[in-house]
Each structure stands twice: as structure tokens, then as C-alpha cells.
């Protein structure tokens, strides 16, 4: 893999995208992200939320006796004031797990895999993978994927570029619905362009060059 492309791949990894490489094609990389189908915010399958109300994992534990709350990074299993075992509750006061009754008792059930109690205890039945978008509350997700083409031009260029200045391979990105063409000029600035936005003329009108790759172009 070309070092320039590898560097680009790490840029996307650092920005929470998934990057795929095709060993038979060293010219491009695929960049993908699981997003909300409505607002395109990232979707995190590893983020836990309460099965009963949708509140996200607060990463705290609470003393059932005095109500003291500490972070889950705290290694103590018992409250140092009351000597009670901490529980791992949902913090939404409207959650059914926080109303007196059978549901609350069920969330405090100790299962055989984990002696911990509460909605967010390890192996709890009541915590699940993210079901509601963090931004808009929508319940469905999809992958967006772009094939990323990189062109390095040894000149300072304005936003007009002759198509012939691109390698023949990168000319393929033009008009392609799923492509993202990144042009890097000799000042180290980037112009990010969706393939379908570039008309198939001899002179390409590029997006503005910026110090950082404009990540928003991925979603256009």
C-alpha cells in the first residue's frame, strides 16, 4: 500500500470511519461508516442503552442504601460508607426500572453469570446495543461507503484543475456516485470532492482547498 494512501487511511480511522483495503487494487481505499438513516449521525453498535427506556449507559454505580454515586472505574464493589454492594442502575427517573414494583425487582435480580445488580450490570438482560439514534432518536441504521481516490499534485493550484492532470485511474472517480476524490496540492492543503459533483468537462471545478480534509463531503 502506498504510504500516502496509508496516511489517508489513518486519517479516516482517527475520525471513526471504517477503512477497507483491496489487496488486488492499491490505488484506492474504501471508507465506510454505520449511520442513522435519517440524520446520518454515526451509529455505535457497542454503545449500551437501557432496554426499558433508551437511556444510554451512564457508567456509574450507586449505593442502594445512601444513594452515593461513583464511577465504574472505581474498583470498590461496596460503598465505603454503608458497606452495601453497589448496583448499576439506569439514571432516568422515569424509567420503569426506577419505579417501585416487579420491574424494578427484576432488574435487581442477580444472574448466575454476574453477581452484579441493575440495568447496566455485566450480563444484564436489561441493557442492549444502541437502538435509538443519539441525535434524532430514529431506530434504523445503514452503511455509507465511499471509494476514496487520492491525487497529489506538485503545484499550488486554485479550484480549477485540468482533468488530464489526474492519473488515468483517478479520472475514473469522476461521475461515480460512490467516489470521493481527494486532491492534495504542494502546500499540503486538501480539496475533497464527491465524484458525482464533478462534471465530465476538461476543466474540473474543485471544492475549496483547506488545511484539513473536509469530512462533511463524505456524507454529501
Amino acid at each position: 500500500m502506498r504510504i500516502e494512501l496509508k496516511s489517508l487511511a489513518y486519517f479516516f480511522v482517527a475520525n471513526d470511519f471504517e477503512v477497507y483495503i483491496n489487496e488486488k487494487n492499491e490505488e484506492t481505499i474504501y471508507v465506510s461508516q454505520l449511520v442513522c438513516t435519517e440524520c446520518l449521525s454515526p451509529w455505535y453498535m457497542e454503545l449500551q442503552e437501557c432496554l426499558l427506556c433508551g437511556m444510554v449507559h451512564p457508567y456509574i454505580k450507586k449505593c442502594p442504601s445512601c444513594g452515593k454515586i461513583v464511577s465504574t472505574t472505581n474498583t470498590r464493589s461496596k460503598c465505603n460508607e454503608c458497606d452495601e454492594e453497589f448496583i448499576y442502575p439506569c439514571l432516568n427517573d422515569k424509567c420503569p426500572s426506577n419505579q417501585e414494583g416487579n420491574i424494578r425487582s427484576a432488574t435487581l435480580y442477580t444472574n448466575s453469570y454476574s453477581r452484579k445488580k441493575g440495568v447496566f450490570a455485566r450480563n444484564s438482560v436489561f441493557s442492549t446495543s444502541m437502538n435509538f439514534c443519539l441525535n434524532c432518536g430514529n431506530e434504523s441504521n445503514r452503511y455509507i461507503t465511499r471509494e476514496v481516490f487520492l491525487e497529489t499534485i506538485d503545484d499550488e493550484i486554485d479550484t480549477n484543475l485540468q482533468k488530464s492532470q489526474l492519473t488515468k485511474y483517478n479520472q475514473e472517480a469522476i461521475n461515480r456516485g460512490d467516489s470521493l476524490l481527494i486532491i492534495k496540492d504542494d502546500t499540503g492543503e486538501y480539496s475533497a470532492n464527491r465524484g458525482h459533483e464533478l462534471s465530465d468537462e476538461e476543466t474540473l471545478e474543485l471544492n475549496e482547498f483547506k488545511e484539513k480534509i473536509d469530512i462533511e463531503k463524505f456524507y454529501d
Partner: protein
Amino acid sequence: MFPENPFPDVDPEEFHKLNKKEVTEDFVSENLRNAGWKVSSFFADTGIDRMISKRVCPNNHTSILEGSVGEKCPDCDADTIEIRRFLQIKTREVKGDKNMFGFTLTPSDFRTDPRHTFVLYSDNTRDIMFISVYEYLKFFKEIDYQWHSTPTFKQGNGKLNNWRYDESSDKWYFTHGRGRGNNYSWEEYRNDEGLKKMQNPEIDKNLEEYIEKTKSLKMEEFKKLKSGRTFDEEPVEEINDALEILKNKDRSKILEERKDTIHFMEENLGSSVKKSIQDSYWFKYKNLNIKKNDYREKSKRNAIQETLDIEEENEGGF
């Protein structure tokens, strides 16, 4: 013939469970390449083992062992489309007298994008099963086996050991309970049949519709709890009533409750707890943020401001 062994110098059985992951994923990849798919592997591990794509006729004229076609289908002249699949590969051996096969999927494995595909590879019989998340959930609904509502599945540690390879008939089944009536054929997902199903561009042409269908199937099963050894009937009924309410709840209410809860945390947790939540866990999630300033500090500042306001008022009065 699909699949074939692309590595004739080594018998798959020579690998043990600690060193076979790579070769088995490669076995699947090479076979898909031979079937005309472009295969990409992850640059940094994220849970998807391979992303594959192929240019096919939208009217399903492209044969499963044919390479990517050009811009037009040679059969019907339709504009071809590029289809993608996101593969999660699970490799296991069939075991025991009954040739049983099993694996673990957890709630976090179920996206609503129907292009997400589970690939189940039985290395000692060299069979590959391809099934999309949509087909997988539909299969369980059709046979009325509510595995995804069980506490075991929700706890994320339940291995489903219900696939069986019948050597005499050379057929694969999903099986539960006793008797022939509880054997459900998996032949349509196996090898070339599975490949044919995976290559069908129907979900790509109607992606939104299939995302919606997958979501509905998922919600139906995931937002339900079955009683059993873990819970008695009574709380389970109440839990299911609560889950039904959540299913029908306006999403703005869910967001409002999340916002109120985070506000409660900001106002009531100590600064070190907030710092730990933000810096150790929530930092990786966009749109999830807890303000770390200490509420006690804020109260102190408010109290000082109030005193100053009163003093100012008093001064104005004289």
C-alpha cells in the same frame, strides 16, 4: 463448484482453533474472488471481517460465478449496478454424533442494514452459509422460534447450537425440539444457493424498504422478553407491557428523557465522576457529552452573584 479449497498444500483440519481464523477468512475471500466479487479486508479491526462488492445486472441476470459485468447487462442491456455486502464471518466445526454446529451472535451484531451478512463457515465439511441480517431475523420469525427474546440472548453470552449437518442426505438443518417437524432446511443459504441469494440485487434496489423491514423484525423480537428459568411470568408480563409502550413512544420523548437525565447527571454528580464518564467512556460518541464543571462550584458562584446583586440593590436604595 463452490466453494473449492484454494490452499491445496494444507488440509483445513491441520489448523487448531487458535490459528485458523485467518486461513478460514481467507478461504471465504478467495472463493468469493473466484465468484467475481471484489474483496476488501479491514485496515483496522472493527467487527466487519470483509466488505465485498460486485457489478451485477439489476434484473438478476448475472451468474454467481461470473466476474463483475460492464456498464450494461449483456442479457437485457439494463444499466448494471454495484452491490455491496458487509460480512461477519463465523467459523466452527461440526461436533458430536449429531454433527451439530453453533455460534454466538449478540444484540450488537444486528444492524438494520440488510446488506450486513452473516457468513457461517463449517470448516470440516467445507460448507459456507450466507444469510443477511434480514433473512436471518425473518427465518426465526417464520419458524416462530423466539430466541432473540430470551434472557440468554439478551445477556450476550448464549451460543446457539442448533444447526445440524445430516451426513446421509448431505443436507443442513436448523433444528429445535424433537421430531422431524422441528428440522428446518438451510439448503437455500448453503454454498452456491446462498451465494445466489446474497447476489440478488433486490435489497439494493429497494434498500429503504428492506431497512424498514429489518428494523420491524428486529424491534418485534428484541423489544420482547420471554419468561423461563430466569424470570417468572408476572414481572415478564409487566416488562413486556413497558417494552410495548417504549416501542410506540414518540422519539422526541425518548430524546427529552435522555436530555433530562444527562442534565440531572450534570447537576448532581461530583466533578470527578463526570470527568471519568466523559474521559473514559463517552468521549468516543458524537452527540453524547456531559459537562464536567462542578455543580457545587456553580452553586457557589451563583450564591456569590446573588449576594452581589442584593448588595447592588441595597446600594441603589440608599
